[in-house]
């Protein structure tokens, strides 16, 4: 049985979080590190924006500044996300060689979301995949996911909302056009959280549930080891990129 490295749940600052995802992708892509499931949280709170987004279009900078919310651009496309202590983030990183996930990007979102859906089902929720990259419960988004394929790796990271202070959504400028095809106008009606659905669970507990389901879905045995010295070194190197305005405000 193939092994899946699990990087246990840890809370880090936003820039470190994005730097480590990239460092692991580089290492997995080269075949140095095994397929990896990483579980993490964010502190301080942050807005992450998609690779192609214009920061001024999607972030309320003034609000973020006043609230101490950091801003970081992701290596992945997709939309802006507010990351708080009520969210579990995961990343799943494998070699881009078809042995674990499909070459077909839309299909692979479904594949990688399926263990998350199964974990939510075990909690008694009627969760389903909503193409292209969302997971919904009762028609509301509970998980958003984004993927890149570079450095010879597939990297998918995503969020699962446990709870959310909806006031913090003011950090995001959301175009009214965005939900037009989903029949809602207000972002707070587009999303839901485990808490709202009556489930009290910690990020650590939810992490454990995900590990079990990823093991089953991909038939890989979890091994609990830390990142390598090389990954640590690359992460530190990449920190300056993710902290820089050249990267974060490049568009």
């Amino acid at each position, binding site marked *: 049985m193939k092994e899946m490295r699990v990087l246990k749940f840890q809370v880090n600052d936003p820039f470190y979080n994005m730097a480590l995802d990239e460092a692991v992708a580089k290492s997995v892509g080269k075949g140095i590190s095994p397929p990896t499931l990483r579980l993490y949280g964010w502190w301080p709170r942050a807005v992450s924006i998609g690779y192609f987004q214009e920061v001024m279009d999607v972030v309320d900078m003034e609000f973020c500044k006043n609230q101490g919310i950091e801003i970081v651009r992701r290596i992945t496309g997709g939309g802006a996300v507010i990351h708080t202590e009520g969210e579990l983030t995961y990343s799943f990183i494998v070699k881009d060689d078809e042995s674990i996930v499909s070459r077909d*990007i839309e299909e692979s979102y479904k594949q990688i979301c399926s263990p998350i859906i199964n974990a939510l089902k075990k909690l008694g929720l009627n969760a389903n995949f909503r193409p292209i990259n969302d997971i919904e419960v009762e028609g509301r988004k509970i998980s958003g996911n984004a993927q890149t394929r570079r450095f010879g790796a597939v990297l998918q990271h995503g969020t699962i909302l446990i709870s959310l202070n909806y006031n913090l959504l003011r950090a995001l400028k959301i175009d009214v056009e965005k939900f037009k095809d989903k029949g809602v106008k207000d972002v707070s009606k587009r999303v839901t959280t485990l808490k709202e659905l009556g489930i009290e669970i910690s990020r650590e507990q939810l992490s454990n549930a995900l590990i079990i389901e990823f093991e089953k879905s991909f038939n890989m045995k979890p091994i609990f080891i830390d990142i390598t010295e090389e990954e640590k070194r690359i992460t530190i190197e990449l920190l300056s990129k993710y902290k820089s305005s050249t990267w974060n405000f490049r568009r």
Partner: protein
Amino acid sequence: MRIGIKKVEGGKLVKVKILEEEGIIKEIRIAGDFFVHPEEAIEELEEFLKGIPLNKVRDRIREFMNEKKIRLVGLKIDDLVEVIEGSK
């Protein structure tokens, strides 16, 4: 500046900002919550479109995308063309 915006049905949001002079694209920014693989292709496309007449965008984008084997997720080439052509 011309701005074009489109929410692709069942897909993503794409927004373009264009500086044009006498029908020629001088500067262009293609932004949104879509996915492009490889990601750098969008910057290359922006660069490629500079100097191209707006009415030639359709053919040129198609050439660029096919030649470089770029994968778009959440929007199609036609959506991109439409949002550029429809910008005001």
